[in-house]
């Protein structure tokens, strides 16, 4: 439970949710709008710690399904200190620009300076450094609906008050079926798979948070965040079929930054309330230096990030009956049938009977090849 001013909003939204149940919800296609200007989107954080500062420049794009995000390439991006220091960032690609900047000069406010190839120039406001206090713990509770994960922190100096979190998830999993055989399409012949070099059975899935997680202790007598909810791992899901890990990153926010993030959350995640909250204009702290009407999306913060990683393994949870809908199909051992199966994207999982194979067993690619949804590289932090 967030414990801040928007607690009421959440309650209202939750109760609205109650009422909406007998109601009905259909997908809605908005009217086509094509003459919409593209706006610059600036995302990132000036990192005072050991990690790199990464700033990503992209553009807004149309609502039509065919529209896609485009990066701002070859821009000149730098971080400028109020002490006239200039710390350039280098282009990494796909609109990202980065450098390792920390530690920054204590007490100096910094800003972001962007010059695009089209000659537009953008500056953020000078932002004071706000370093996050360490995360006390990340803990979890198992309930009928799954596993709820919470974060706890506090600032003994009572200075932080406003927090934001994001996270990266990693989980170990196995493909439901093994495969030692593979169809060579050139002559439709089943051959043995190179199972020492091509590992498709044991993988790690990586995911990152897609929602905004905010917390505030502004209404409490001490700067303490208790059981701020992050996510719920759905019951019996693949996430804890073997072992699961979450890395929580904690940012400290200024009151203004918190308000901006909160508005972003209200405008894009907490919509649909029965009372109909109007979207609000949400101006960030980055501006076009010449055109004040140019909308720039993003809010730049400066400070350190605190992280905490926890692991949850299958034997720590109860009744985790992970089942897939993967099944094996029996394919008659002739070239036509095998080719049709191959064209359908199936992989061979076995053969029968022995020694004269009359049938092969196959299954959908994703049920066999875990690299399609994960990586077969064991992460360095994995136990």
């Amino acid at each position, binding site marked *: *439970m967030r*414990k801040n001013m928007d607690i*009421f909003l959440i*309650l*209202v939204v939750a*109760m609205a949710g*109650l009422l*909406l*149940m007998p*109601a*009905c*919800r*259909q*997908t*809605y296609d*908005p*009217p086509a*709008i094509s003459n*919409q200007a*593209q*706006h610059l*989107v600036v995302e990132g954080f000036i990192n005072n710690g050991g990690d790199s500062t990464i700033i990503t420049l*992209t*553009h807004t*794009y*149309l*609502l039509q399904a065919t529209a896609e*995000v485009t990066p701002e390439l070859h821009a000149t991006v730098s971080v400028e200190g109020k002490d006239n220091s200039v710390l350039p960032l280098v282009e990494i690609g796909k609109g990202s620009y980065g450098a390792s900047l920390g530690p920054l000069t204590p007490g100096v406010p910094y800003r972001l300076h962007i010059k695009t190839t089209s000659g537009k120039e953008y500056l953020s406001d000078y932002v004071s450094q706000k370093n996050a206090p360490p995360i006390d713990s990340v803990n979890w509770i198992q309930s009928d*609906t799954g596993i709820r994960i919470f974060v706890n922190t506090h600032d003994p100096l009572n200075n932080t008050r406003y927090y934001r979190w*994001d996270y990266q998830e990693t989980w170990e999993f196995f493909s439901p079926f093994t495969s030692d055989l593979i169809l060579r399409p050139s002559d439709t012949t089943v051959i043995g798979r190179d199972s020492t070099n091509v590992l498709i059975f044991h993988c790690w899935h990586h995911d*990152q*948070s*897609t*929602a*905004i997680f905010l917390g505030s202790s502004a*209404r*409490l007598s*001490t700067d*303490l965040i*208790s*059981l701020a909810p992050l996510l719920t791992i759905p019951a019996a899901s693949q996430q804890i079929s073997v072992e699961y890990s979450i890395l929580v990153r904690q940012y400290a926010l200024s009151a203004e930054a918190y308000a901006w993030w*909160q*508005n*972003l959350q209200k*405008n*894009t*995640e907490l*919509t*649909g*309330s*029965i*009372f*109909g*909250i*109007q*979207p609000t*204009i*949400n*101006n960030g702290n980055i501006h076009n230096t010449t055109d004040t009407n140019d909308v720039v*999306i993003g809010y730049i913060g400066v400070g350190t990030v605190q992280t905490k990683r926890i692991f949850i393994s299958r034997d720590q949870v109860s009744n985790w009956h992970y089942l897939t809908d993967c099944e094996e199909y029996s394919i008659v051992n002739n070239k036509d049938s095998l080719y049709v199966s191959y064209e359908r994207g199936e992989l061979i999982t076995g053969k029968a009977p022995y020694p004269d194979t009359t049938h092969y067993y196959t299954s959908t690619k994703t049920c066999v090849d875990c690299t399609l949804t994960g990586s077969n590289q064991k992460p360095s932090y994995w136990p």
Partner: protein
Amino acid sequence: MRYLFLATLLLAFSCRALAQQTGDLPLATTLPRITGHFIGFKWSDFARQIELRSASGTAPLHFYYDSTQLDSLTVTINVQDLRLDSLLEQLFKATAFHYAMDENGHIFISKGWIIQPSLPVGFFGGREDTDSHGSSAATGNAAAAGISMNVGTARKGLAALNQANRLYEIGVRTNKLLPGKAVITGYVKNLRTGEPLAGVAISSDRPAISTVTDQYGYYAINLPRGDHVLTVQGIGMRDTKYQVMLYTDGQLEINLREQIVTLREVIVSSVKTANVNRVQLGVERLNIQTIKQVPTVMGEADILRVVLTLPGVKTVGEASTGLNVRGGSADQNLILFNDATIYNPSHFFGLFSAFNPEVVKDVQLYKSSIPAKYGGRVSSVVDISGREGNKKEFSGTAGIGLITSRLTLEGPIVKDKTSFILGGRTTYANWLLNLLPDEYKNSRGSFNDLNLSVSHQLNKNNNLYFSGYLSNDKYNLNSDTTYGYGNKNLTLKWKHTFSSKTTGTLTTGIDHYQYNITSDRNPVNGFKMNYAIGQIYGKADFTWYFNARHTIEYGLSSIRHNLRPGSYEPYNDQSLAATQVIPTEQALESAAYLSDNYTVTDKLAIIAGLRYSLYDYLGPHTENIYAPGLPVTEANQVAARTYGRGKVINTYQGPEYRLSLRYAFTGEFSVKAGYNSLRQYSHMLSNTTAMSPTDVWKMSDPNIKPQLGDQVSLGFYKNFKANTIETSIEVYYKRLKNYLDYRSGATLILNPTIERDVLNSRGKAYGVEFMIKKQTGALNGWISYTWSRTFLRTDDPTAGESVNKGRYYPADFDIPNDVTMVGNLKINHRLSFSLNMLYYTGRPITLPVSRYIYAGSERVLYSDRNAYRIPDYFRTDFSMNIDGNHKIHQKTHNSWTIGVYNLTGRKNPYSVYFVSENGLVNGYKLSIFGSIIPFVNFNIRF
């Protein structure tokens, strides 16, 4: 009915008693001679005086008369040594009364015919009846037969007790009609229940003058002295005519019979001309019978939902009972229930209105000409009158519907003097919540409301009324977050008739609304949040029926506002929640008004009203002072000044004009024009489209100016088919000032410096409303079409922030086209069908124009506010009302209502929204009642 019959019988008996008096006229010489100065004596007192004076003499006199005939007769005569027969002669000259005497000193007063104290000679076959000791108790067939020849016609008329055949003499009788006019006053009541009837029209045909009873059933009509036929008409009541002879100011009690108790009666409706004759514009009255006929969701008769079908009244959607009247916002309506201000008129977050239909008499909506006695809100007044209990006998109703059960009890405490009505509703809506997903399975929701009204007649000139209202809503989400809200209202009224020309009402009461949110899910964060708004008020309203041309209304009112704008406290000892209490707010809002209803000619009438309101924002309070001409921000705060208890922090005041004019070209066609200005000193802070129970109110203070509104309107009214079909066209243009909007991301709850988060807006609204209405007959209802627009504009040069760059933009409730049909067809007295059809343009909405990626997910960027619209709305509802049989002498009467809400099952969008889910943007169209919803309701009356 039974009473009438009994009365008729009594009359017949008294006739019989009179009939058997026999004998010759007493010797004139034995009659007493009277000297006296009688002024304004009731006939009965006068007769007693004469009887007393003669009692000591040789021939004691006794008067025999029908007191119902003579109760309105007053004796004013100055006599000097005049013999009684001459006196009576003089007294009854030029009246319908006659007197007769027998030799035993019995004097019979009759009306319309002459009593012959002796039978004609030879009546009984030549034998003379010489019974000289007839007494009123003795009866005899022969005597009865004898008199019947004379009274025959009269009896027939009396048996029907048709008031039209009875002449009511009003005032102090004078031998000669005085020139000029006089006032008839009195109450109109329901004959069966004794309940006063409001909105009943009393009109005289020649000259055409009419008046309407007020909410207490009181009326006053100013007519030229002389004889008149008064036509009395109330909806649902039988039209009645009264023959009156008006001498001087006097009283006339009118009892009306209900129309429904009779079967197969041909209803002849004549002058239903209220809409044409009324001077005001934009006034709609709905009685509860009409409201109950209109099918609503889940079959709950819903007062505000029916008000919403009237032209000029809009709402942002099905989940809101917030009324937007002619471009006004939901907080700009003064919602009165028996004079009590109801801050939140809804249950279940706005799905149902908070008024129990069983205790409501009618609803009056003022959307244009707002009488000067009302103030404090800039858009409209919704005046809901509760019923008074049955003054004759105990009765009650009970009902079962899908959402609520209701029980109403009423009856006399002292018969014909004091009555009560007690109504309660409770819900069992938990079954609705059981349809929810598992994570809400411990949720509970409920609401209830309770009404009690007591009315007491101290005497003819003094009436007392008490009314209490209590509503409660409570929700328990997953058994750790409780949420509750409720209204509490008490009203005490004293209505006093000073004279036949002046009446006054003294009203005092307390209104209160509160909500609370409690959370104890996480002991560290557990909190209790409370909010309350209340007012204590007193007002005195007077009506002075100055003469036939002028009715003056004047009065004073004062409201003491008390707000506790929020407190936030730890739930228990474990909680670290820091207590925050927003300082209380106090204000005193006073007003005086004067209004003249001036009938210039039969055709032209004017109501000119002036209300002057004075508002003081009071301490204790610390007021932030900001640099003038700069945005109201923390940086621009220059000082803070603390004021002590009761100290005036600042004052706002100003006049409000209420002007309307009617010119009746004919009795069936009139044109009206009006101008109204209003001031509102309280603001509801809400940045949601629909009203929410957690919306808070803010009083005007040095940084937040009062809302101002004014409106000009013009209307054309024409009736057809003997006034059974009413049509009207009304056009209006309205302006609003100092309407509050909010900065981006403003926090409205628990914000001690709310002035930094508001933006002043200006509004304009205009439109035209067409309406065709048929109130009577087997087929009744109305069809209306409204075209209207409402625009707002941020009007705050120093704000540094504006909505849509300070341009006019359509308000959330800007619904240009609106077609409504409400119809009811009575097949017979036990079966009727109702059908609603509604179509309106979709409301404006802010839609996204593009997407972007941020914080791991696609998100949307919004367009200008309200630049798009949700799809149009169309709905049809149907219901069938089945009454049990109409036999009067059965213990209970029951009725069923079966119906279907949203007959076509159209998925009418309530809102359209975009949400980022699992990294992607999804657009949804949300319908509140997006399917066919059948309902059934059972009611029992006992």
